[in-house]
């Protein structure tokens, strides 16, 4: 059985429907990437899984339990960590407070604590008493990832982690995510940056107009630039 299985979900914001019967699977230990241009439904897929914009129909099976319709906090406590597109750190809380709030909110013990997160991202330890809003974009992204990790998730949803960051920072971030993957963390990644995602992903889903247009191993796209061009030109 897959770890996460999204089955034929349809999701709307008010009257405008964004997802039209989208299905995908993530197995334990995998890094799966959603590819596609702006507006194809990558973030909405993430929000639907997390329960923030619950799907109108279809199922979200997390470890064989249908979590569609659950409030987000129960989904988080069931072991899904969320790194949102716009980061959404608590800007007026210090770095340490951001992490502490997240650890207490999820209340899931495990490998990750504020201390181990600061080992992985030393800059967070150095700036622990500064308000989150004072951090640079890259530091904020690390804080967002750290904030999800202290909840000790079994699956990490990463929505556009490289967006708006300088190339050097993007490289550092990719290494950190690769480390997490090497540790066995299951990751569902949504990215517009193709190089970034293909470097990390085991499998990809290419989305178009709220549904899956193509799925396959990431290696196939890495080795076949023509196929990649064709899919990404959608």
């Amino acid at each position: 059985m897959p770890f996460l299985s999204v089955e034929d979900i349809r999701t709307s914001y008010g009257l405008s429907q964004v997802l039209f019967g989208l299905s995908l699977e993530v197995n334990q230990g995998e890094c799966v990437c959603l590819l596609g241009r702006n507006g194809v439904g990558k973030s909405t897929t993430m929000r639907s899984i997390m329960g923030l914009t619950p799907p109108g129909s279809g199922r979200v099976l997390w470890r064989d339990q249908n979590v569609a319709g659950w409030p987000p906090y129960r989904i988080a406590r069931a072991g899904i960590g969320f790194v949102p597109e716009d980061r959404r750190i608590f800007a007026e809380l210090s770095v340490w407070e951001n992490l502490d709030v997240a650890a207490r909110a999820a209340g899931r013990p495990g490998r990750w604590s504020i201390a181990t997160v600061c080992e992985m991202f030393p800059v967070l330890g150095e700036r622990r008493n500064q308000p989150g809003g004072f951090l640079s974009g890259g530091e904020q992204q690390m804080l967002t990832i750290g904030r999800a990790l202290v909840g000790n998730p079994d699956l990490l949803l990463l929505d556009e982690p490289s967006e708006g960051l300088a190339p050097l920072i993007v490289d550092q971030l990719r290494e950190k995510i690769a480390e997490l993957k090497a540790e066995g963390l299951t990751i569902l990644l949504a990215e517009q940056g193709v190089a970034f995602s293909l470097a990390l992903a085991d499998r990809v889903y290419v989305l178009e107009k709220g549904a899956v247009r193509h799925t396959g191993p990431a290696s196939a796209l890495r080795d076949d630039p023509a196929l990649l061009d064709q899919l990404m030109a959608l």
Partner: protein
Amino acid sequence: MTVSLIAAQLFSGLTTAMFLFLIASGLSLVFGIMRVLNFAHGSFYMVGAYIAWQVVTWLHPTGGAFWIAALASGVGVAILGGVVERLLLRHLYGQEELYQLLFTYALVLILGDTAKFIWGTDQLSVQGPPVLSGGLHLLGTILPYYNLFIIVVGPAIAIGVGLMLSRSSAGRLLRAAAYDREMLGALGANVGLLYTGMFVASSFLAGLAGALITPIVSVVPGMDVEVIVQAFIVVVIGGLGSFWGTFWGAMIYGLTLSFGILVFPEFSLFSVYALMAVVLIVRPWGLFGRPIR
């Protein structure tokens, strides 16, 4: 103007200020964290005053039992607030603010009429605790021990709640909820429960304030609306949603009122409204508030 007169006005201003702070702090916290403007906060205060009178009358018609009554008021109004939040108000989160205003205004009317139905329209009075009868001779005037008690309790509660917000884990969760409710939920916090807790705590403060004022002011219909107007002025001066702003807003209100009487006896209330107008012109977001992003 003599020293004793100034001292007398200072003490009365501080007492008024601390009562207003007790009331306005709950209003301000609920707005700051939940973004709900609770018009019925003054009604909760009034219900607290009536409960205090009722409990004292039941237990000790000749006086006494004041502390038990104060506690009963706080707890009783906290339960009332919890029921209102869980059953009704909860459904209005995320809706237009107008709906919340209409709803809490309806509560003002319902609670006002219910109180008249139960307790009538007579002025009711409650005797203060015997322990605090008498007063302190200070600077040529007498400061009643009960007022002194209020002047001490106000800042104590302010510091307690302030520390809770800035240092405790519950305070961190509340500040995070004020900043981004949805994100906090996605991290695993049950924000609905947090909101209920916040509303219950704010109702407790309103009920307690209602009980504590009964030895000084008689309990009458209409005290709800009178106090909510004052509390709104305090909160507007201090900055909506700012906790310490509410404290200093109450201080400024209380002292302006008591010294305003000395300077313009006919226009004592006018001085407070004038102050609010000046604040709104110079800093529309209040002295300690922040402009809305």
